């Protein structure tokens, strides 16, 4: 049961009007050109921080507002509507969770306030091959004197262009762990990627990168999975927003575009496809908010629900973006129209953090199917 508090409703309404006002879809076109080397517009991020969004998962003791993932998801959904590019999720969800959920009190005190104020942005570096395989990390962190030495390569790290801090997954003698690595540390090499969704991403290479002993934030597969699940669920919320907006934009077009002397939305074949799509969106919405709620409550089935949410969001966003182009016809194929932007983001967001097939398999394993 998702019943929003008055506070959450206020938050959502604020996000809705800010996004409408400040981040039209055309803002993404500016990212392609003006902010290509940064991957997002830094002014917008500052405004998000001023509204407190960067501290939503951070305890009050460390300068945050501690409202939980459902609240963050409401914002992500609104951002997703207009394909807003920002390091909000990689910082305020992924990095914040990695620090909050870890057991490194010094880093909490050091990093969380900076995240909450928006002065520090971060990226999460996990994957090393073409597919999401968080259980199969080759990067290593080995103890050397009283610090760590990091080696390895990470591929397609979202928001790595603008990140001050990299949260890096590496294998230690005790298994997988996450490390906090300043992005400008010696031995860190960054290759900017020009991706179809126009957001900031980079390939990273770590060559004998020396970190303090205190750089280890937390360890163990369950810990890493929990951090990933928070990010996956938040990203699913963002994808839901993109889906909903693509749907609404398409419905508007169906209502107004005239062909054969009728608005095309009066053609039953399109009506029925739209009605079926409405059903898919309802299912996805339920899955997304169930996952966010379960993560907030640390429910046992939170990982299952997260995979459900991410898989459904991936499928539905892809399907909707495809329909958006098809129903718009030729104009939807042009770069000038927004439909292509939705398609490219749908694909990218699906691939990141495990695509629908990955999460179907994860779901099956949880249920011993």
């Amino acid at each position, binding site marked *: 049961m998702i019943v929003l508090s008055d506070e959450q409703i206020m938050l959502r309404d604020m996000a809705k009007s800010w996004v409408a006002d400040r981040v039209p879809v055309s803002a993404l076109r500016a990212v392609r050109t003006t902010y290509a080397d940064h991957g997002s517009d830094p002014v917008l991020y500052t405004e998000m921080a001023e509204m407190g969004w960067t501290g939503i998962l951070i305890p009050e003791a460390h300068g945050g507002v501690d409202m939980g993932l459902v609240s963050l998801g409401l914002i992500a959904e609104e951002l997703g509507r207009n394909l807003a590019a920002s390091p909000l999720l990689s910082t305020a969800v992924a990095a914040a969770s990695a620090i909050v959920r870890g057991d490194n009190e010094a880093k909490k005190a050091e990093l969380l306030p900076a995240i909450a104020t928006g002065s520090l942005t971060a990226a999460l570096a996990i994957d090393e091959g073409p597919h999401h395989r968080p259980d199969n990390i080759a990067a290593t962190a080995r103890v050397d004197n009283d610090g760590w030495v990091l080696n390895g390569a990470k591929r397609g790290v979202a928001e790595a262009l603008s990140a001050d801090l990299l949260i890096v997954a590496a294998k230690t003698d005790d298994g997988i762990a996450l490390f906090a690595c300043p992005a400008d540390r010696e031995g860190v090499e960054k290759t900017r990627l020009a991706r179809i969704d126009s957001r900031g991403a980079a390939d990273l290479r770590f060559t004998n990168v020396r970190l303090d002993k205190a750089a280890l934030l937390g360890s163990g597969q369950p810990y890493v999975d929990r951090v990933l699940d928070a990010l996956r669920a938040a990203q699913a919320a963002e994808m839901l927003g993109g889906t909903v907006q693509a749907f609404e934009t398409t419905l508007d077009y169906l209502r107004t575009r005239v062909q054969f002397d009728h608005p095309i939305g009066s053609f039953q074949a399109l009506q029925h496809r739209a009605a079926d799509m409405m059903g898919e969106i309802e299912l996805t919405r339920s899955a997304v908010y169930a996952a966010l709620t379960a993560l907030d409550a640390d429910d046992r089935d939170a990982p299952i629900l997260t995979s*459900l949410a991410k898989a*459904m969001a991936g499928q539905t966003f892809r399907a909707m973006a495809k329909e958006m182009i098809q129903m718009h016809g030729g104009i939807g194929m042009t770069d000038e129209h927004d439909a292509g932007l939705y398609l490219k983001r749908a694909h990218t967001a699906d691939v990141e953090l495990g695509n629908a097939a990955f999460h179907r398999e994860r779901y099956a394993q949880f249920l011993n199917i």
Partner: protein
Amino acid sequence: MDHQAAPQTDEQFRASARQWLADNFPVSLKGGKYILPHTQEEGEKPGPDYLLWKGRIANKGWGVPTWPARYGGGGLTTCQAEILAEEMARIGAFNPIGGLGVMMLGPTVLEFGTEEQKLRHVPPIARGEIEWCQGFSEPGAGSDLASLRTRCEDKGDHFLVNGQKIWTSFAHVSDWCFCLVRTDTSRKQAGISFLLIDMRTEGVEARPISLINGVSHFCETFFTDVKVPKENLLGEVNAGWGIAKRLLQHERNGLSSQRNVANVERGLPDLARAYVGTDDEGRIADADLRARITAHMMRQHAYGLTLRHRNAGIEAGLEGSAQMSVLKNLGARVAQDLNELAVEILGIAGLGWEGPGYSEEELELTSGWLYSKCFSIYGGSHEVQNNITAKRVLALPSA
């Protein structure tokens, strides 16, 4: 009705409901369920504990927890009703009162009936004493409900009804029928009235229709010079269409929240492990099938979440009832997919019409699969639901 005596918090209500259930629900019925009229007909008579339980629930009004106490209901808030359902589920209890009267006619009489009609018809429904059936569809009308032709003539002191209905579910075991009849042949929707007919009236005959799975709860119902007292008209003459549309919202509401999926009782993965086997790592051996089972279970899971989501969001009952068309279609498809997968898992064992050579479970699953094809037809076809969604939810233009 002591629970009405003083305003309670939800937590107080939960505590008192839990106590009452502990005191009153017969342990022997644990894990049981509401017995449909046709199942009774097929021999599964309710035992003495069932009748005891039904009587206790009826006295409490908790068979229809949100209906007004004045008409036999529980007078609970939606939230309290949800708590009651949760508490029942917690101990394996169930609501022994159901049927079309509860799902559809009761709320409609409460909304459109005269005080006299409410007092006469609602309490027996609330107590589960009277079974109702629905006389809407006609041969030749199908999805185009308003083209119905069953004639109703005003004979001064009574109405005279002649015509034929179809798909009247459980008509052969029902006590009463709510019918749409034509009172004006010159207008389509505006010539329809809403009539309550006692099935024991002379001239009423219900014949079960055999379906593709060999059984049926649906009937053809014939009305030949049937005399209906004038007080059995619900609403005004020729105002039946509006009432029917409202009633159909209740139907969609009810159907969309039904989980048509219970017929594979042990679950698809279990069934697959038994009939297909597992590989070295314990996975269902057929990878292609396993992927489709997984995808189905995820949809079913998401659908269940959607129902809960909706139930939580809707307070007064029928807001957003058009959205029910979306849910009805989703639910039907999930249930149909489940049944398709079940028979695929059974393989050769899922080809049986009757024994020997097939287990009871195999025959039930096969028959259930055939029957499941009607989920996207009855209660408004998939196509009709999508038309409603397109028009009323998505505000797409008419042709």
